[in-house]
């Protein structure tokens, strides 16, 4: 189910019902508030009014993170926090959204996160929050920091300009919801009950590694859920239940690669594989392979990276250059005639000279962004089984739509 609602967490600073006029001409059509006067007037105006902590039917609300590059505070200055490779660490809601959608595909996902205490009135953090949620089909419940909300309420021009930017960004995504019906393209499936924070972190870090993956809750595992995948990662440190194991072993026997975070007992390959890895023993199993760790893989970063290497970057669906800190999501229409690559750039400077190789055979590619919503044709360079596109300078989000 695709929701057409664009929700706003009503700011406490907006006490007068007349502030509802700020929503005129925007796509915001649902507010979450406990202010009875505002709620009454909103309902009269045809807006949906909900309790802030009660999700409406068909909606899952996640308490999310503030999306963006993580900063370490040192007194009055801020420094970028680094991840295991020295690259900037990014907080993102992409993986929780994907997990929530995989667990309950019939629901729309909303993210409820307050913005940072004071955004300084800039639109940038809001654009990132909206885009990071929208990348995989969720909606951020637009929430304003108090100083900005007050300034908007007082009609200050700079604040109104930020408000306009926030609502126009939200409008862009509201009118492009057809992409939410696309299915993820993936080389690797991640199968688990996702009961532990370690498995969540694996999802997070596989996202950060740029791998295109499919989240498969083990309770929903069917043979069809593994269709088209090259590999499956079982990230739990406890082996899954026997029926799940059996299904995953079937996948490997039929030609896939099964990567386990912990050794499974009684799994014996038919022959050693030529593949070598410092932390995994790879053995042939039927027509495929199984990679069993020499020790349980307790470091989610190492596991996520090793999974990418075991699958091999040869099979990368997306390869980026000059993109910086980014999340990307590659999906296809059900008839596979159209596809989209959506990108969120977390830097507050426009990404320039970004090049992208997309695996697949496509004839045309167009790009749109919240700042330039009309699709513009991109030059494509045909490669072997892929195309390369060169992006113009883009701010926080861009969608490339492809036709086969």
């Amino acid at each position, binding site marked *: 189910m695709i929701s057409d609602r664009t929700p706003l967490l009503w700011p406490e600073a907006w006490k007068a019902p007349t502030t509802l006029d700020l929503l005129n001409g925007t796509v915001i059509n649902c507010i979450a508030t406990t202010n009875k006067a505002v709620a009454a007037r909103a309902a009269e105006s045809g807006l949906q009014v909900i309790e802030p902590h009660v999700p409406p039917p068909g909606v899952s609300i996640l308490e999310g993170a503030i999306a963006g590059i993580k900063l370490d505070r040192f007194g009055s200055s801020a420094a970028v926090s680094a991840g295991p490779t020295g690259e900037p660490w990014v907080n993102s809601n992409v993986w929780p959204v994907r997990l929530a959608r995989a667990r309950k595909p019939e629901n729309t996902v909303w993210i409820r996160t307050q913005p940072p205490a004071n955004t300084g009135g800039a639109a940038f953090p809001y654009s990132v929050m909206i885009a990071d949620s929208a990348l995989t089909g969720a909606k951020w419940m637009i929430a304003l920091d108090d100083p900005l909300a007050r300034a908007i309420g007082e009609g200050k021009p700079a604040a109104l300009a930020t408000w306009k930017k926030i609502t126009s960004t939200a409008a862009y995504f509201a009118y492009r919801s057809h992409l939410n019906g696309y299915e993820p393209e993936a080389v690797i499936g991640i199968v688990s009950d996702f009961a532990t924070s370690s498995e969540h972190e694996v999802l997070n870090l596989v996202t950060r590694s740029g791998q295109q993956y499919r989240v498969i809750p083990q309770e929903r595992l069917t043979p069809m859920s593994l269709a088209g995948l090259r590999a499956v990662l079982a990230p739990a440190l406890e082996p899954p239940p026997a029926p799940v194991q059996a299904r995953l072993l079937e996948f490997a026997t039929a030609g896939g690669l099964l990567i386990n975070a912990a050794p499974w007992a009684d799994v014996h390959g038919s022959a050693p594989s030529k593949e070598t890895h410092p932390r995994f023993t790879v053995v042939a199993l039927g027509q495929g392979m199984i990679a069993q760790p020499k020790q349980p893989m307790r470091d989610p970063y190492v596991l996520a990276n090793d999974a990418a290497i075991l699958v091999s*970057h040869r099979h990368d669906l997306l*390869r980026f250059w000059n993109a910086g800190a980014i999340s990307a999501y590659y999906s296809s229409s059900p008839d596979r005639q159209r596809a989209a690559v959506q990108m969120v750039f977390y830097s507050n400077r426009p990404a320039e000279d970004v090049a992208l190789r997309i695996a697949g055979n496509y004839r045309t590619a167009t790009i749109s962004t919240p700042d330039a919503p009309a699709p513009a044709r991109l030059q494509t360079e045909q490669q072997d089984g892929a195309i390369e596109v060169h992006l113009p300078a883009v701010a926080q989000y861009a969608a490339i739509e492809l036709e086969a």
Partner: protein
Amino acid sequence: MYACQYTRRKWLKAAAATTAWMGSSGFSPAAAAPATTVSVARCPDYGPDLVPTLDRMFDQLGGLGRLVAGKTVAAKINLTGAPSYRLGYYPCEDTHYTHPKVIGAVCYLMARAGARRIRLLESPWSTADSVEEYLLQANWEPRDILNSAPNVEFENTNFLANAKKYSRLNVPHGGLMFPAFDLNHSYADCDVFVSLAKMKEHATAGVTLSMKNCFGMTPATIYGTGAGIDEPSILPKGGRTIVHAGNRQPSKSAPGELHPESPRVDYYRVPRTIVDLVSARPIDLAVVEAVRTMTGGEGPWVREKLTRVEPGVIVAGTNCVNVDAVCMSVMGFDPMADRGAPPFEVCDSTLRLAEDVGLGTRDLKRIEIAGARIEDVRFDFAGLRRQRRAAKKETAG
């Protein structure tokens, strides 16, 4: 941009101390430094003429067979920076990576000349993954190189890899910065060592040619940002801050600096470390390609006006200092330049330091050139550098 905190007085004092030490240790003066033949060739693209061009160049050097027949050859290639960095939209190999066609052609010719095993070495940025996986991320096809000849293989030398221990390579002249290095075994377990470099300017060292290419031999597990304090770290992380900045010593398991009181300035430290490295692991064959390359720096991250260019030239020889001297002249720079003159406006000349320790001469009058004349293949990096600096001055003014 790096802000130099080291005074000129301190710098000169340190440099004088080094010179005095070199004198007392009985070094030969530069005049005695070896001079060999250097081959220069025009090569306008990476097409079918590449193999015959390189073949001819190696013949001009006396033939590859005498060097590699029956031997294990290790070749250090240049894949500086992450594979996800490009200059504009250009592929890495068109600007700052040694081109895969050159790598493949050299492998082919070495195998044809009888090389028993060819090992391609690099310490890719901040990773212990295989070089093949690194290349795939740059949009290369590793099989094109692996299939260019029998028995070609890659090894990531940024960490211990499959060896049981690091190999200690001593600096025969005692060292300017380090007396010895602990390196991946590949640099010791070879009969012949080749530097397969790209011709570029360099933000810290002025130029990066066959000698500077070898800076990447140092494993980040010992000399990098995330190096272990007592022992090497298991996995490499970040760049070689320890060598650049001297903010700490390498892992204690490896030999420390000779002169911890020396300047903590990369313009001083990097050229000396390079000389120590190429002394510890001598280069038997240097090939520097600039069929396509870039001006302004060594990679897209340098904050300069960077331009992709097509000089269409390759330089090769068996003495790395001689080769780098010829390359500098091809680039329009004076190989006899010292600190203060382009491209060494702020750094010491690696060539001068290498000559001083007797590795080879940089004096073009002593180097025999085979093949094309330098004047005929010159591509004016120096002129472009002057223009950039003048424009910068104008903007600043």
